[in-house]
């Protein structure tokens, strides 16, 4: 759906983005992960032409974005920034209505859509007339998302959307976003410097450094086959935590010998993360799990040895 080819942005004194190419499929979430100054945000802003590329092209549905006026292009692409991106002089309702009003929707349609979004994002109706500074950080972020979704754009660009939130609210909102059907149907490009967020939200993750795209792949691919020492270093000493978060019971099952689980075992789905599975194991007395209909019994120690075989050794 989005096709980025040889995108480059040079400034007089430095190159922000160097020859970046990738494609985002329909309904896919691509996360651009990198430290600050890596060129990830510049890449994002070249997609909706907030920044004009020095060279290279961006195609959306096969059409070069240069064919369209920037403001018209932007209206068809949802744009989410940190919660500070809300207009402070507009109420929640007015903020959500910004793009629909630019598109000249009639009042009833805007009102219906606003209420729909409030319900979806679990925002109280009475906050419709509140100003952003009267909301909590998490509420502001939800309003920011509602604003981006308001006009039903097929594509959503998110620039560090959770950057200004505390870690706990961040995890909550992330969870909420993941569970939103409407969001799952969007094609999303999200920029973050938070590895956990990238691995959790991204169908695929592109790691950027110094203006270049170093590697792009699913979270599992990145963890199993990091293309370079830099990518591996990115996960740092939390690599184990990320592995437990990304890998599921299904991934480790090939490495565990089939054995009858016995009647005391707890039933689990194959797509449960190892992290969640281990948490459960420490809470149950038996310490035994059964996954779906598979004739398998899993103890904590089995997971550790399986994981050991799954991932590569540090160089």
């Amino acid at each position, binding site marked *: 759906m989005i096709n980025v080819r040889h995108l480059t942005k040079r400034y007089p004194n430095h190159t922000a983005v160097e020859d970046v190419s990738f494609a985002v499929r329909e309904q896919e979430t691509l996360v651009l992960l990198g430290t600050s100054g890596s060129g990830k945000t510049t890449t994002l*802003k070249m997609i*909706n032409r*907030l920044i004009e590329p020095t060279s290279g092209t961006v195609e959306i549905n096969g059409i070069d974005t240069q064919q369209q006026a*920037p*403001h*018209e*292009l*932007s*209206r*068809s692409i949802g*744009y989410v*920034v940190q919660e*500070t*991106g809300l*207009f*402070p*002089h*507009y*109420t929640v309702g007015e903020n959500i209505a*910004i*793009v629909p009003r*630019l598109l000249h929707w009639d009042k009833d349609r805007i009102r219906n859509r606003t209420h729909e979004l409030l319900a979806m994002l679990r925002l109280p109706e009475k906050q419709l007339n509140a*100003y952003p500074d009267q909301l909590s950080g998490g509420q502001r972020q939800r309003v920011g998302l509602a*604003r981006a979704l308001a006009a039903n754009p097929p594509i959503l*660009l998110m620039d560090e959307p959770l950057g200004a939130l505390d870690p706990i609210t961040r995890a909550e909102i992330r969870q909420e976003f993941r569970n939103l059907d409407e969001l799952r149907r969007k094609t999303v490009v999200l920029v973050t410097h938070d590895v956990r967020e990238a691995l959790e939200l991204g169908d695929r993750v592109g790691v950027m450094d110094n203006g270049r795209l170093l590697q792009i792949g699913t979270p599992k691919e990145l963890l199993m086959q990091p293309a370079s020492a830099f990518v591996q270093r990115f996960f740092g000493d939390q690599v184990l935590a990320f592995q437990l978060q990304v890998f599921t019971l299904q991934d480790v099952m090939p490495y565990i010998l089939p054995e009858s689980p016995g009647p005391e075992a707890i039933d689990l789905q194959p797509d449960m993360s190892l992290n969640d599975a281990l948490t459960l194991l420490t809470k149950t007395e038996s310490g035994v799990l059964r996954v779906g209909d598979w004739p398998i019994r899993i103890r904590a120690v089995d997971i550790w040895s399986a994981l050991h075989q799954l991932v590569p050794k540090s160089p």
Partner: protein
Amino acid sequence: MQEFFDFIVQQGDKLAEQTLTHIGLTFLSLCLALLIGLPTGILITYRPKIAAVVLAVVGVLQTIPSIALLGFLIPILGIGSWPAIVALFLYALLPIVRNTYVGIREVSPALKETARGMGMTTRQVLTRLELPLALPVIFAGIRTATVINVGVATLAAYVAAGGLGEFIFGGIALNNPNMVLAGAIPAALLAVLFDFLLARLQHLRGLRLRRVALVFLLITPALSAFYWLPGGISGGLMVGFAHEFYGRADGYPGLARTYGLRVTPRLIDQNLMYEAIYRGQVDLISGYSTDGRIKAFDLRVLDDNKNAFPPYEAALVVRQAVLNQYPELSKTLHLLDGRLSDAVMTELNYRADFRHESPEAVARRFLTEQKLLLPPTRKQRQGRIVIGTKIFTEQYILAEILRQLLDNRTTLEVVTKTGLGGTQICFNALTTGQIDLYPEYTGTGLLVILQPPPALADSLKADREAVYRYVSREFQSRYKVSWLAPMGFNNTYALMMRRAQADRLGIRSISDLKRYLGDKD
């Protein structure tokens, strides 16, 4: 205090009229400043390079003292409403342009980018994001501009543009504190009131702020409509009087009583009147009978055929002790008796003021023409005499004539001490012996120094010689100061017209004027 309230009650109509004119003038200029300043402030946010230049220019305008700014504008725009409106407009420009610019620049760049990221055009970013967020700052600027304008608008009375300054200028000219306060207090209250209202406006938020701002922008032109200038025209003649002349008992009120003359003048600074009549902005002014501009602008002084104005004959006042000590002094000074007629003095003033000849050169030429100078001789100087003057051209010229004459014809060492402020300062210097003589006017000696009961003053003033006799006698007995014989000219109030117009209308005297105006009514 009671006198102040009496004055307010008595002059209530005039006060209300001046207050409305004042408000109107303030908002008319504010309106223009908004029309020009807001778009300018907005435009320069897109051109940072031009912004620095524009802000510097409006900043410099702001630093020009208000009187000087009016001074610059008068040659271009003459007198009346326009220079006042333009001056106020220029003052209001800086706070409005600067605050618009700063207000917009202070909107976070991240927000502006977000707005563009949502698909807003440059214009939409301006109207939906930048301007609404800049409104409190812009209103702070409007508030500053309004308060400045209320203050500076008092100077409008200087150029016959009306407003509360009429009381202030009149009060200062007449040394009437109640009159000054009657103008100053309402002006201060207006400033406080507008400051308060606009401060409240500035602290509103969101939609309410945007709505109130819109209402304010609609009200401003409406308030401007208060600005209209009453009066000025009488029987087809535009009349401009100095504040002092209009209020002082021996000025217009005396004139009105003696001749039954009734006019509704515009009030204007006395130094600007001459320029105004020369340019045809007014047709009849009050003035002083020996002013050099009478000649420069070819004005006709209307004959005061019924002696409405008291005599102000110029003569030297000298300490009697000095006269006794140096007999040659008296003899020499009497050479000047009657030699300076109105026409001669006007000519001398004209040379100094308009030909820019120094008082020294003017005096030398006069003494030479009058053949009063002897061939220079080497003398042994004995004794010392100090000549004082007040601060205006005529006095400087007279002092120079005296100095050269005494230097040439006596053995005295002559020193001048010019620029001794007003009458009271000069006279005190004389009685304390700091100076020995200075040129004084009979009317001033009578009304300012001696201050006889009004009945006596009234009975005296119709007769020049009676006034002279009275002041000489009283000065001698009270202060041991002698009035020498009058030098010949009478520098008193006078009504003046352009000569050409006066000739065309057949007006030579104030009675003629009264007849002309009476015919019209």
